[in-house]
């Protein structure tokens, strides 16, 4: 069992609790012991990076410091936005000794641990599609009965690729490989690497909905039974804002949206209380019927 520090971020703590429970249940099955971080805060999303960038750097340094304090050299995230924020801050700190020293002095002054031992921040997707991939087929023993799944990557797990670097940002295949290994059929469509509109869904709803409709409409046309995403922000907009698309365009897609941990979780036989599909806005019923669950 490999130990990794686990940063669940804001959404998995609150509105996307189903992401947290399914991740926790799945982790030991694929060989990870998740080390809880109690004292951490929000990574700031892109928002604190834009509003108070120096504070953003310190918040993320503090998260990295608490992750290092667990003794693990890896911090696992389950959100694209957290991944970019933490990796961006981490790169700055690891490659600029003077900046790190200043940030560490500030952390120390407020009573937080200094960020001394280097930690690598990795997304759950990268662990599953990377080092744990050989074990996946056995873990996903129940399969997906050829369910047609449209992978939706979202933005900040692919770009900027110089910070992310796990796979080709224009031709990613990690989700497709996972879907196939779990016994599903990956559906291809152009918008799978585009934006869901979430960062501006409250401030610029029309623009955001113009982005959101693309993956849902294209996945539907390609015959997908459901969309899977590694990001809870993408999940929230794809799932909860479908009703707004219906209001705006008259199109009622009823496209079920899965968190990555739920997709693998279903194939791995996790329980209802771990998967918590009842917390989704768009019903998962058609998918569960196809799986005869």
């Amino acid at each position: 069992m490999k130990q990794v520090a686990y940063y669940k971020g804001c959404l998995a703590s609150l509105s996307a609790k189903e992401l947290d429970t399914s991740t926790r249940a799945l982790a030991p099955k694929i060989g990870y012991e998740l080390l809880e971080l109690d004292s951490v805060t929000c990574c700031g999303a892109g928002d604190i990076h834009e509003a108070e960038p120096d504070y953003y750097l310190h918040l993320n340094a503090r998260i990295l410091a608490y992750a290092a304090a667990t003794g693990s050299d890896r911090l696992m995230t389950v959100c694209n936005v957290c991944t970019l924020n933490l990796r961006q801050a981490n790169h700055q700190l690891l490659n600029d000794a003077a900046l790190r020293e200043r940030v560490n002095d500030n952390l120390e002054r407020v009573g937080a641990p200094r960020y001394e031992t280097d930690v690598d921040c990795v997304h759950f997707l990268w662990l599953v599609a990377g080092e744990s991939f050989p074990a996946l087929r056995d873990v996903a023993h129940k399969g997906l009965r050829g369910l047609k799944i449209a992978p939706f990557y979202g933005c900040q797990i692919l770009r900027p690729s110089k910070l992310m670097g796990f796979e080709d940002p224009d031709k990613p295949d990690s989700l497709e490989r996972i879907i196939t290994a779990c016994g599903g059929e990956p559906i291809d469509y152009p918008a799978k690497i585009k934006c869901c509109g979430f960062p501006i869904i409250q401030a610029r709803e029309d623009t955001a909905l113009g982005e959101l409709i693309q993956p849902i409409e294209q996945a539907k046309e390609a015959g997908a039974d459901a969309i899977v995403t590694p990001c809870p922000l993408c999940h929230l907009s794809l799932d909860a804002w479908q009703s707004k698309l219906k209001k705006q365009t008259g199109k009622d897609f009823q496209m079920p949206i899965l968190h990555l941990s739920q997709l693998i979780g279903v194939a791995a036989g996790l329980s209802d209380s771990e998967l918590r599909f009842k917390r989704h806005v768009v019903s998962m019923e058609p998918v569960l019927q196809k799986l005869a669950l």
Partner: protein
Amino acid sequence: MKVELKIWRYDASTGERALRPYEVDVSEEATLLDTLDVVKDRLDGTLAYRKSCRMMICGSCGMRVDGGAVLACKTRIADIAADGHVPVVSAMGNLPIVKDLVVDMDPFWQKMQAIQPYLEPRLDRATEGENIVSREGMDAIHKESLCINCGCCVSECNSMESDPDFLGPAALAKGFRFVGDERDGATVERLERYSEEHGIWDCTRCYFCNERCPKGVDPRDAIAKLGAEAMKTGIDRDMGAKHAKWFVTSAKTTGWLRETELVPKTQGVVKAIKEIKFAMALLPKGKVPPPFPPHVAADVGESRALFDLVKTQGRDGAAGIIQGEKALGQLEHPGDAVDGPSHPYDDPRSFPKPYLPDDEEPAT
């Protein structure tokens, strides 16, 4: 080297569109632009594309390869046609196509014009002699100054695809080039204007612009710098700015984002009330977590104290982003030491010693 490629041909005057295959013989070193030249010279003289300098300076030859914008002169054909792959070449996105690979750049220039791409020094007196700008002052806008107006960043901009009036990454990056210039005297007016509808807060943070820029401008980062400068200057009435402010408030009060209050804090109470029906549908699914009791992170006092502390250290606004750029620059130039020379010409090693053609190696 034999190369196969497909090109989307288009004629706006007739509306005809077709994907045509071509096969040509080019050298191993050939760029995509060289390859197009061969296609035009030997196979089809009607193929239309723009070119000029052939060395990544003029910004003329922006086009898409397999859906992603590149400079044709910066792209080796051997890299994009490797292992039998047949690349598909097409015109850039988000701009109207005139013919084949040529787009109408007028909307691009109009947006560039809208941000007033020139210095407004507003000197209150004539200076004697030169007005010298500090090295640090120019370093702060170095990245944005590298822009060659090629349009590659605009091509895949997701916000612009949805809202064609969005100023977009190129114009906004240019905007920071002037906002960040210590000689400019119109900073406040600029930030006001860029903060309007279709400006800074319309960016959806898809990061396609950073991915596509062939010159390392990182337009998304420039937009974040504009946002940071606007907030620092107190230009924060836009919903996007209020949205960002609520994240800061959340981080220093409860530690975690206070999700449910984000809506009224961003949109205002009146608009938020109109969203009640939408919220009620999400409520039973747990997607509207109750704000009370708040979900408070352990040791959140540290987070609040950190905020108060860093606010006294003078890294507000864009400076907070610029301070990390030397480290981030190493992603592209791994050899550059952060604490090394701040400018290539400061480093004596940057000048090769002269040597005679008969010498096997440069004299050391």
